[in-house]
C-alpha cells in the first residue's frame, strides 16, 4: 500500500471539464430566474442541459482512455488560503469519477426525458426541472471534486435538492414530513462527514485527495479508525445504510422520476463513492473494513426482510435499494479488488433500479396513482412495454443468468467468501441469504403487479400504457439491464485499476467454497426464492392487510427502526428544546409566576413579555456571572485545570 497517488494537470479537451457542472447549473439558474416565462419550453432546456453534459462526459471519457496517467486534475482557483489551510477549487477526472459522470448524465438524461411525460400535468413542471438540474450539477460536483471540501459542497447540494424534490408535492402532509425526515437523518450523516474533514485538517493539514491519500500511512491507527468511522457515518446517512436507513423509503413521497434518479440510481450511491474514493483510508485499517462490511451485510438483510413485508410498490423498491446498496457497502468494505466489484454493481444497479422505478411510475400513471400492489394484478395484458421492461429489471435484480445482476452481484458474494477465517462464512452466508430473499420479494412484487387476478379499485376500467416519451427511456434502460452487467463486469475493473489508490491489490484469501459451488448455490437460492414467491402469490393476495405473526409485523413496522430512532434522536431532542425554551422564556420567574404565567393566549403572552421580565433576565445573567467567576476561581485553585 506504499504506492503514491499522482495526478496530472488537465490539458486540451479535459481542461474544460468544469463545463459538466456549469451547464446544468446554468440551466437551473435560467429556469428559476425566468419564472413563468419559461413554462413552455423549460423542461426541454432541462433535458438538453443534461443531455449535452452526457455528450461532453462521453468525449472526456474517451479522451481519458487514451492517456497514460488517467488521473487528471484541473485547478480552477485558490478557494481558501489562510496560513496552513489550502483548499483548492479544483476538479478531478479519473476513471472512477468518469464512470460516475457517465452514470449520472446517462441515466439522468433518460429520466429527464421520462419526466417530461410524467410531469406533463403538473403545474410546477418548470420548477421541477430546475431542481432536477440543480441536483445533477451538485451530484457532478460531488464526484468531480479533487478534495474533500469540494465533495462536501456537492454533498450538501444534493441533500438540498433531494429535500426540495421530496417535498415537491408539499400539499401532501406525508411528503412534507418525509422531506423533514430525510433532511434530519442526512444532517446526522453530514455532521459526521464535516467532522471527518476537520480531523483531516487537524492531522494532515489538507483535504486534497492526493495529499490525504499519500499522508494517510503516517497516521496513527486510532486516528484512521475515527476518521474512517466518521466518513462511514456520512456515507451511511446519504446512502440509507444502518442505522440511518429510515429516511430513504419515506423519501418515495416525491415524484417517481425523483425516486428513480436520486433515491435509486445516483445520490444514494454517493456513500459508496465516498468510501471507494477514500479507499486508501479504509484499506489502512482492518477494523474499519470489518465495520463497513458489517454495516453492509446487516443493511442488506434488513432491506430484504422489510421489503418482503411492504405493499407499496415504491417502498418495496426503496427497501430493495437499501438492500442493494448494502451489497455495495459489503463490496467496498471487503477492499482490494472488491472495490471495483462494488462499483460495477453500483452502475448495473443504476440501470435496473432506474428502469424499475420508472416502470412503477408508468404503472401508477395508468392506475390513477395507486401504489398498493394488493390492488394491481393482471396488468401484463394492458401495459405490454411496461411489463416487459419491468421484467428485465426484475430478472436483473434477482441475479438471474445472464442478466446484469448476475454478473455484478455474484462476484461480491464470492468475494465475501474470500475473507479470512469465520468472517468469510458470516458475511458470505449473509450475502447468499440476501440473494435468495431478494428473489423472493422481488418476485412477489412482479407477480402481484402484473399477473394473477385483477384486484383493482372500482374506479379503474381500462389501465392504459404510458406515452412514448415515457416508454422509450424504459426500453433503453431495459436494454441496459440486460446487457450492461456482462459488459461492465469485464471492462470496468480493469478500467478502474488506473484510479489513484484503487489499483492496490491484496492477495485474496482462498475462498472457503469454490467459485463454481458458490455460483450454483446462489442461482439455486434465487430460483428457490422466486419459485416460492410464485407459488404463494400466483393467485393474488388479500386486498387488505392481514393479521400476521411477529416477524411480518416487525418487518411491516420497518423492524421498529422508526421507534428506535424516535427514542434515540427525537425524544431527547424534543425534551432538550422544550427544557431550553422553558428556561429561556419563563426563566427564574417561572418558579415564581407558575401557573399564572402559563395561562393565557397570544396577547396574554405578549403582555407577559412586556412586564417584569427584566428581573428574570438580570437574574439569569447574575447566575451566569456567578458561574463564570466561580469557574475562573476554581481554575485558579486548581480544581478544573
Amino acid at each position, binding site marked *: 500500500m506504499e504506492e503514491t497517488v499522482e495526478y496530472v494537470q488537465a490539458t486540451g479537451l479535459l481542461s474544460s471539464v468544469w463545463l459538466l457542472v456549469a451547464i446544468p447549473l446554468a440551466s437551473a439558474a435560467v429556469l428559476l430566474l425566468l419564472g413563468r416565462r419559461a413554462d413552455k419550453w423549460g423542461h426541454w432546456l432541462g433535458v438538453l442541459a443534461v443531455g449535452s453534459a452526457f455528450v461532453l462526459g462521453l468525449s472526456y471519457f474517451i479522451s481519458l482512455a487514451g492517456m497514460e496517467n488517467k488521473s487528471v486534475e484541473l485547478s480552477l482557483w485558490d478557494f481558501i488560503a489562510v496560513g496552513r489551510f489550502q483548499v483548492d477549487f479544483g476538479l478531478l477526472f479519473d476513471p472512477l469519477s468518469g464512470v460516475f459522470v457517465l452514470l449520472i448524465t446517462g441515466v439522468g438524461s433518460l429520466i429527464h426525458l421520462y419526466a417530461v411525460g410524467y410531469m406533463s400535468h403538473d403545474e410546477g413542471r418548470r420548477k421541477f426541472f430546475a431542481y432536477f438540474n440543480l441536483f445533477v450539477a451538485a451530484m457532478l460536483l460531488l464526484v468531480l471534486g479533487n478534495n474533500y471540501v469540494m465533495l462536501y459542497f456537492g454533498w450538501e447540494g444534493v441533500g438540498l435538492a433531494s429535500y426540495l424534490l421530496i417535498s415537491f408535492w408539499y400539499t401532501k402532509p406525508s411528503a412534507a414530513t418525509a422531506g423533514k425526515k430525510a433532511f434530519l437523518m442526512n444532517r446526522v450523516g453530514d455532521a459526521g462527514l464535516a467532522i471527518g474533514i476537520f480531523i483531516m485538517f487537524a492531522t494532515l493539514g489538507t483535504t486534497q485527495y492526493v495529499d490525504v491519500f499519500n499522508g494517510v500511512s503516517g497516521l496513527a491507527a486510532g486516528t484512521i479508525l475515527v476518521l474512517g468511522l466518521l466518513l462511514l457515518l456520512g456515507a451511511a446517512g446519504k446512502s440509507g445504510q444502518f442505522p440511518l436507513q429510515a429516511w430513504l423509503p419515506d423519501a418515495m413521497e416525491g415524484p417517481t422520476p425523483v425516486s428513480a434518479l436520486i433515491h435509486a440510481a445516483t445520490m444514494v450511491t454517493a456513500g459508496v463513492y465516498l468510501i471507494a474514493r477514500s479507499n486508501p483510508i479504509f484499506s489502512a485499517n482492518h477494523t474499519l473494513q470489518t465495520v463497513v462490511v458489517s454495516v453492509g451485510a446487516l443493511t442488506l438483510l434488513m432491506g430484504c426482510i422489510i421489503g418482503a413485508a411492504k405493499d407499496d410498490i415504491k417502498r418495496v423498491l426503496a427497501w430493495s435499494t437499501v438492500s442493494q446498496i448494502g451489497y455495495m457497502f459489503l463490496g467496498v468494505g471487503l477492499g482490494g479488488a472488491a472495490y471495483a466489484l462494488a462499483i460495477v454493481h453500483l452502475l448495473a444497479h443504476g440501470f435496473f433500479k432506474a428502469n424499475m422505478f420508472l416502470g412503477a411510475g408508468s404503472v401508477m400513471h395508468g392506475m390513477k396513482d395507486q401504489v398498493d400492489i394488493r390492488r394491481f394484478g393482471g396488468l401484463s395484458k394492458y401495459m405490454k412495454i411496461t411489463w416487459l421492461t419491468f421484467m428485465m429489471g426484475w430478472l436483473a435484480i434477482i441475479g438471474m443468468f445472464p442478466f446484469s445482476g448476475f454478473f455484478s452481484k455474484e462476484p461480491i458474494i464470492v468475494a465475501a467468501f474470500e475473507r479470512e477465517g469465520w468472517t468469510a462464512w458470516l458475511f458470505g452466508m449473509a450475502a447468499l441469504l440476501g440473494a435468495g430473499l431478494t428473489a423472493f420479494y422481488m418476485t412477489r412484487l412482479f407477480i402481484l403487479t402484473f399477473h394473477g387476478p385483477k384486484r383493482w379499485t372500482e374506479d379503474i376500467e381500462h389501465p392504459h400504457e404510458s406515452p412514448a416519451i415515457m416508454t422509450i427511456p424504459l426500453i433503453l434502460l431495459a436494454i441496459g439491464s440486460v446487457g450492461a452487467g456482462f459488459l461492465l463486469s469485464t471492462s470496468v475493473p480493469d478500467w478502474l485499476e488506473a484510479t489513484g489508490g484503487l489499483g492496490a491489490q491484496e492477495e485474496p484469501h482462498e475462498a472457503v467454497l469454490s467459485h463454481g459451488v458458490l455460483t450454483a448455490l446462489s442461482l439455486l437460492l434465487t430460483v428457490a426464492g422466486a419459485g416460492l414467491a410464485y407459488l404463494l402469490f400466483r393467485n393474488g393476495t388479500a386486498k387488505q392487510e392481514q393479521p400476521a405473526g411477529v416477524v411480518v409485523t416487525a418487518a411491516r413496522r420497518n423492524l421498529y427502526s422508526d421507534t428506535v430512532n424516535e427514542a434515540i434522536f427525537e425524544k431527547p431532542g424534543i425534551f432538550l428544546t422544550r427544557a431550553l425554551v422553558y428556561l429561556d422564556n419563563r426563566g427564574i420567574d417561572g418558579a415564581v409566576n407558575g401557573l399564572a404565567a402559563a395561562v393565557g393566549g397570544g396577547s396574554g403572552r405578549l403582555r407577559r413579555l412586556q412586564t417584569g421580565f427584566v428581573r428574570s433576565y438580570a437574574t*439569569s445573567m447574575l447566575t451566569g*456571572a456567578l458561574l463564570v467567576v466561580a469557574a475562573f476561581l476554581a481554575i485558579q485553585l486548581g480544581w478544573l485545570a
Partner: protein
Amino acid sequence: MEDLNLPPIDYAALSPILILFGVACLGVLVEAFAPRRARHPVQLVLAIGGSVAALVMVVLERNTRVVTIGDAVAIDGPSLFLQGAILLLGIVSLLLIGERSLEAGGPFVAQAALTVGSEKDNRQAQGAPGNTEIYPLAVFALSGMLLFVAANDLLTMFIALEVLSLPLYLLCALARRKRLLSQEAALKYFLLGSYASAFFLFGVALLYGYAGGVNLQQINEAVAASQNSDILLYAGLALLAIGLLFKVAAAPFHVWTPDVYQGAPTPVTAFMAACTKVAGFGALLRVLYVAFEGVQWDYQPVIGTIAVLTMIVGSVLAVTQQDIKRLLAYSSIANAGYLLVGVVAQNREGVSSTLFYLVAYGFTVLAAFGVVSLVRDADGEATHLSRWAGLGRRSPLLAAIFTFLMLAFAGIPLTSGFISKFVVFGAAIDGGQSWLVVAGVVTSMIIAFPYLRVIVMMWLSEPAETTPTVSVPGWMTSAAVFIGVLATLALGVVPSPLLDLTNDASLFVR
C-alpha cells in the same frame, strides 16, 4: 510648577474616530438649527459622507501600527481592519436607516415622547416625517465602536462602551409601529446593558488592584510577573469578560437579544446585529489576546464552555421561533458562539478567521434584515413566520434572495457562511480545540433546520389570503440588500482576497 509632559498624539491615526465624532456633533447642530424639512437629506448626506471620509482615512492609514495618546489607543492591524469593517457595515446600515419610501414618514417615530395611543400619537402615526436625531445617534454609536476596538486601556474601553451603548438604547425605542414593544425593548436593553457595564467596571477595578494600572500591556506584564494575588486577576478577568460577552450576546448573557432585536426598528436591529457584533468581538479579541495572553490556558476552558453553551442555546431555541426577527436574533446568538470558537483558538488564524467571520456575517445579516423590512402589511412589517407562507409565489425574486441568505446562514457551500464557519473551525482545530469544532458542526446542523423551514415556508406553501405584500424598495434598501447579497456570494466564491487581508491584519500591537 513644572510643565507637564504631554503624550504624543498621532492625529492621523485617530482621524477616523475624530471625524465621526465631529460629524455627530455637527449633526446635533443641524438638529438645532436646520429647518425641519431640510434635516433628513442634510443629515443623511452628513452621516454617510462622514463615514465615507472616515473609511478613506482608515484606508490611507492602513499601514499604521502605533500606540498613541498616552497608550490609550492602539491603532494596529486588527483595529484598522475592524474600524474599516464597522464603517463599511455602518454605511450599509445607514442606507437602511435612511429609507423613507417604504411607509409614510419612514420607519422611525416622529416624536418619541408622545404617549402611545394618545390622539396626538395617532395623528403622527399617519405619516408625520420621522425624527432625524437617529443620524447623530447612529454616528455617535459608530464613533464609539471605532474607539472600542482600538482602546488600549480598560478605562478608554469603558468610555467607548458607553459612547456606543447609550445611543443604541435610544435608537431601539424609536420604532414608528409597535411602539410599546419598541420602548420595552429599549428599556430592557438599557437596564441590562447598565447591569453588564457595572460588571465590566467592577472587573476593571479588580484588575487595577491586581496590576496597578488599566493599560492592557501593563496587565500583560503583571500577569507575566505574577506576583500578586491571582484571585484579583481571575475575578477581574471574569467580570470584564462578562461585560463584553453581554455585548456580543453570548449565553447566558444573551437574554436581552431576542426581545431587543424584535422590538427595535428593523434598520436599527440590522445595525446592532452587524456593527455591534464587530465592535464587541474586536474588543474581546484585544483584551484576551493582548492583556491576558499569559493565562490563556486558564480562560480557554471557560470561554470555550460559554461558546458551546451559546451555540446550543442559539441553535436549539431557533428551532421553535415563530417570528422572523426573533429567529434571526437566535441565529445571531448562535453565530456569536461560532465566533467565540475562533476567539478561543488563541492563534493567529483565530484572529484572522474571526475577523473574516465578522465581516461575512455582518453583510449577510444586513441584507436579511433589509429583506425583513420589505415584507409588510397594513400594520407595518409582517414578521410572524406564518405570514411568510407562499411568499415565493407572490414575489419570487425577494424570496429567492432571502433563500440565498438563509442558505448562507446555514453554512451551505458557495456562500460566505460556509467559508467563515470553515476557517473559524479550522483555526480552532489548529489551536487544539477540537471539542469546540465538534460542538460547532453539530449545532450548525441543528440550526440549519429552522433556516430550511423558512425556505420551505416561502416556496412550498400555498399563499394564505393574508400573505403580506412586498413593498417596492427604495433605492437605498435595494442598494443595501444588493450589497449584502453580493458580498455573501463573493466571499463564498472567492474568499481569498479578504482572507489575505485578515491574515495581514491579524497581529496586535503590544
